[in-house]
């Protein structure tokens, strides 16, 4: 399509008169795009470089622009092995690992499972789908209020089950520094799994019915049908869903704030919370910037190959 579009511009008669006016006309599309592009270059890429620069200074409360070397990274590196007592950074990256893995895995599994169930010619699908999906429309600052309450041992689930007679029931993860990150997983899965379900459902609806029929005629059981034929066909959806979930996981910030306020002693922190706290509250700007750079690099490692292949595959 690109060749078509450029050649058509060249065909227009005005092109031959190289007057200022027509040259301006030719440049107009680029002039229109320029502000947005410039904004992106300055405020995204320029700012990223700025953050990288700051991470090599000794900025504390205010930015300092004297390069002092990789001290911030060395400190983060040192903290990575500070396990007794765990440093905030160690806690943050360990939590990222636990949260990232469980969040992505459970969302994918649950999303696929629900999509397959919903794809069984269900009456009332039109009612169920929006119910599964609405959490994505709400801010976690909002639903965190309810989750916090629900998970609170003195008020929520534990209390309710005690009232119903199950007095030995014990569920205090949200107050427990070793388990608080799992409550973040529960709430995160609750928020995103419906959307992943919608992605898989769209994928399932796109599969050619003839293939399914042929397999059934060949005597494949339903389980075999999904295991051998449907799930392999959904591979592109798995990839897209993984990309979406991975970058949501790394960006997760308000989830932790709303649900746990950081957890007991910062035990629920993710790197995003670490960055915010160190930069704006603990006056360790260089360390905060270094942690932001590490977050960014993680995203780059995941997203750039994906975008490259997406934009490459279909040259239009």
């Amino acid at each position: 399509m690109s060749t078509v579009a450029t050649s058509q511009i060249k065909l227009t008669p005005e092109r031959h008169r190289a007057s200022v006016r027509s040259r301006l006309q030719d440049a107009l599309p680029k002039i229109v795009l320029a502000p947005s592009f410039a904004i992106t270059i300055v405020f995204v890429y320029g700012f990223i470089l700025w953050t990288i620069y700051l991470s090599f200074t000794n900025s504390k409360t205010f930015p300092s622009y004297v390069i002092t070397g990789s001290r911030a990274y060395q400190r983060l590196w040192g903290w990575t092995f500070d396990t007794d007592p765990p440093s905030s950074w160690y806690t943050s990256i360990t939590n990222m690992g636990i949260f990232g893995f469980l969040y992505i895995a459970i969302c994918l599994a649950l999303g696929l499972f629900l999509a397959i169930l919903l794809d069984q010619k269900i009456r009332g699908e039109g009612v169920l789908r929006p119910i599964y999906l609405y959490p994505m429309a709400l801010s976690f600052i909002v639903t965190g209020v309810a989750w916090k309450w629900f998970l609170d041992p003195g008020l929520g689930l534990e209390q309710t089950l005690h009232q119903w007679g199950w007095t030995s029931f014990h569920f205090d993860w949200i107050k427990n520094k070793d388990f608080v990150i799992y409550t973040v997983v529960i709430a995160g899965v609750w928020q995103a799994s419906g959307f992943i379900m919608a992605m898989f459902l769209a994928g399932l609806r796109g599969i050619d019915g003839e293939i399914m029929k042929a397999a059934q005629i060949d005597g494949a059981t339903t389980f075999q049908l999904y295991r051998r034929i449907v799930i392999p066909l959904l591979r592109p959806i798995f990839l897209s869903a993984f990309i979406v979930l991975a970058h949501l996981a790394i960006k997760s910030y308000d989830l932790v704030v709303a649900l746990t306020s950081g957890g007991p002693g910062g035990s629920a922190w993710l790197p995003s919370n670490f960055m915010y706290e160190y930069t704006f509250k603990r006056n360790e700007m260089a360390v905060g910037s270094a942690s932001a750079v590490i977050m960014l690099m993680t995203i780059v490692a995941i997203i750039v190959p994906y975008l490259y292949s997406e934009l490459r595959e279909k040259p239009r």
Partner: protein
Amino acid sequence: MSAVTTPARQASGGVNVKIINRIVIYGLLALFALFYLMPLFVMLVTSFKTMDEIQNGNMLAPPRVPTFDPWVKAWGETCVGLTCAGIKGYFWNSIKMVVPAVLISTMLGALNGYVLTKWRFRGATLVFGLMLFACFIPFQSVLLPMATILGSLGRFGVTLQNSVGTSFGLGNPTVNLVFVHVVYGIGFTTLFFRNYYEAFPTELVKAAQVDGASFFQIFRRIMLPNSMPIFVVTVIYQFTNIWNDFLFASAYAGTGDAMPMTVALNNVVNTSTGVVEYNVNMAAAMIAALPTLLIYVLAGRYFVRGLMAGAVKG
């Protein structure tokens, strides 16, 4: 028929297995529906209860005597930090921030998408790729420089205020947030419009060009009238994202009267003086949720489409 139950042969299983399968499927679906609805349900019922009923009753029970007082209090009286004038001011702050930010970013996205698909030039894919990647960056990596720049602009605004008499909005937290959301939103809006216009017949544009229509004439007369669906998607997506934003809001308008709704709500909930009024908290949360919830109920289809466009690109 289902993937959950044991892979029973249809021939040997017969009607009974089929019925059991259906019951299991519907049962599971209903169970998950409860899981997803539970927080909203708890929020809703609690916001209509008295504190007395909350302390002595069951959290899942509907209110015995529904009361609107928590809603009234949340809207007009509850304390956000030290000021006790309810959340209504912050609600309007959010509206004042969201509306211009959505309109500007959507318009820019439409123009960008138009240029990137119908007026392609060398390097257009690179330009698009660079703008697209901006959608995925963790905003922590730009948070601090932006704070520095906004701070400088604010000081410049004060100077202008003193010398010329107006700051031109420089340093105003709402203006700042509109700017920030436009800057970090155009990646998404450009993506939406670019994907939509990609499928739009180029022949129409070509024909109009032959007839001598200018760049903007084509955009106004041909592209815009055919863009309604993607406008709806983009506006809903942007509205939801910007309304729900917490990171930028707390970094650039985290204190004072200009706080957006999300920050104010977080403050209400975490104010630890005196007895925690759960019913008022829940009512405040419901009020904060209403705009996006309303949009979702009215136009959920488009919302989903927007999310999908953000996920499955081309």
